[in-house]
């Protein structure tokens, strides 16, 4: 029976992003949380393995007490138990410290695990670093950006698209994969499962001490990364009215098109076109 650990992050709900227009930052304390979409795909990948080959799934998350929500949701979807890493001392962790914290907790609470699954990146920070760093921390092989995964005789076989090539890879277990949102469509939460997840489900809450973490290597204190600025990218929209004779308008249109598209792809289309 394959023992799987799925790392899940609660991220702010995109549809309800309370954005502070004055500072251009996200008001996280006001945002409703949801399961990060790629983590949802990672969970789905684990659930499919469990459904076809059997197995046991532990969902683990690090976050404020509210993050328990995503663990309950994971259990409603089919995970067997949840581990909530919550401690004020863990707050403000960068990706490196997050990976360190998760790794120590997995070693402590998920002994004998075969496969760790993470989302390839999170919708609120998009670094895509935690999964690969977790492989280093746990000292096990890892494959990132996996589209599809299946068990094959004590190993996992994976497909991913890398540099426009479709790769098929095989990895011995224990190992870690980070999963894209490409193949696994997120499933909806069964309401009966949700009722059960709030009545009989097992969720262990662990703080830094319970995991046995060095207080110097967790949270903001242990983080080397300092965020200097967070801003919302601006996308401009402009209407241009072309006037004059039709021939002139068409020429103008193509010129503008060349400028815009050529600028975006970093290629001089006019020269390219003329040389042909």
């Amino acid at each position, binding site marked *: 029976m394959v023992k799987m650990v799925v790392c899940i992050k609660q991220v702010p*709900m995109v*549809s309800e992003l309370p954005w502070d227009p004055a500072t251009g930052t996200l008001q996280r304390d006001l945002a*409703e949380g*949801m399961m990060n979409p790629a983590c949802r795909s990672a969970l789905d990948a684990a659930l499919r393995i469990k459904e076809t080959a059997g197995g046991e799934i532990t969902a683990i998350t690090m976050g404020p007490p*509210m993050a*328990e*929500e995503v663990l*309950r*949701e994971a259990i*409603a979807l089919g995970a067997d138990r949840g581990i909530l890493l919550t401690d004020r001392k863990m707050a403000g962790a960068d990706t490196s410290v997050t990976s360190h914290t998760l790794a120590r907790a997995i070693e402590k609470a998920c002994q004998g695990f075969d496969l760790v699954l993470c989302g390839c990146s999170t919708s609120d920070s998009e670094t895509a670093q935690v999964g690969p760093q977790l492989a280093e921390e746990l000292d096990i092989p890892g494959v990132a950006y996996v589209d599809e995964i299946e068990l094959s005789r004590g190993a996992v076989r994976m497909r991913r698209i890398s540099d426009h090539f479709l790769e098929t890879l095989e990895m011995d277990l224990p190992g870690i994969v980070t999963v894209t949102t490409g193949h696994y469509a997120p499933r*909806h*939460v*069964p*309401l*009966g499962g*949700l*009722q059960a997840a*709030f009545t009989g489900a097992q969720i262990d809450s662990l703080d830094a001490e319970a995991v046995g973490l060095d207080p110097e290597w967790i949270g903001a204190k242990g983080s080397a990364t300092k965020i200097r600025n967070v801003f919302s990218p601006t996308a401009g929209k402009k209407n241009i009215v072309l006037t004059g004779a039709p021939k002139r308008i068409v020429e103008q249109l193509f010129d503008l098109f060349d400028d815009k598209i050529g600028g975006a792809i970093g290629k001089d289309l006019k020269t390219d076109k003329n040389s042909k």
Partner: protein
Amino acid sequence: MDFNPCMKHKVVRKAVRMFAEAELGPIAHDIDRDARFPTEVMEKMRPLHFFGLQAPKAYGGAEMDTISYAIVIEEISRISAAVGLCLTVHNSVGIYPIVRFGTEEQKKRFLPAMTGGLQIGAFCLTEANAGSDAGGVETLAVRDGNDYVINGTKIFVTNGSICGTALIFAITDTQNPQRSAGVFIVEKGNPGFAVGEIEDLCGMRANPVSSLFLEECRVPETNLLGRPGDGLKIGLATLDAGRIGIAAQALGLAQAAFEDSVRYSKERQQFKKPISSFQTIRNYLADMATEIDAARLLLYRACAVRDSGRPFGAEAAMAKLYCSETATKVTNTAVQIHGGYGYSKEYDVERYFRDAKVTEIYEGTSEVQRMVISRAVLARRT
């Protein structure tokens, strides 16, 4: 007293919102325009227990508490009130009477298919001469050996053309209609049971509301719910439960109209300013928000009373009355805020406006709710 939703209710809301926005959002406008019931979405709802929200687990239900149930109906109705209507009728007046009054044999026989969404439920009380006056029912069930033979016509049956299990309210003695009323479970395919034309209604158009005909429709006596003469009792208990669902549905509609109004008032520019900067619009939004909040609190209070096992008839009537009148008022204001666009089918508020009105009519009109509430008030010791 804690007015914050608990974690479970928050997660239920998010899960259903995600489902509704993803699966119903893209089609809500079209199914209203085409008066089409979205069977493809029903297929997706089945494994997620939408058809057995509060039914016991033993019969395939999700065994949810009533606040969770109200949240589900509210969130589905926020996107499509017509689909919310299907669910609330199926769950609260289709399944609930069987759970509450059915024999073990009846529960085993009818509930699994209903909670699995394979048989949609309908509750058939209204007739040409009976609605608010349940005593005016003329559909007659005559005992014949171990069977009952039913004759009559039911109108305005929600889920009419798609129902697989209909609860038929009928009398067994024309001399004594009130005391002889009974509720009979009639399944689709039963000889003598036929579906009439789908009604051409102002709102809730994606729900196939129709009439049902019973002509020499023979059912075994084991299809009678409760004892002979229990009809009125079952009917009243069922309507109490049903009112919570309709209140939730109305609340979802009001919420949707409010959210659209907030969004539109920030976008729409007049006199070179967003209309949300004008005091009149701000006052509209303030009143809408206040009334919706009051409606929601009344509804959740009724749900909590029900879950505590105490009588909740008056609380449910208050919630239904206030939620439905709020829905009509808020959707009306939403159209006003949207101006000419609000009167156009291009904008959803036009649909909300049409959908809202009936919440003041079915499952007991506002006038009937006031009757129920005033009776409770007058019966209390002062």
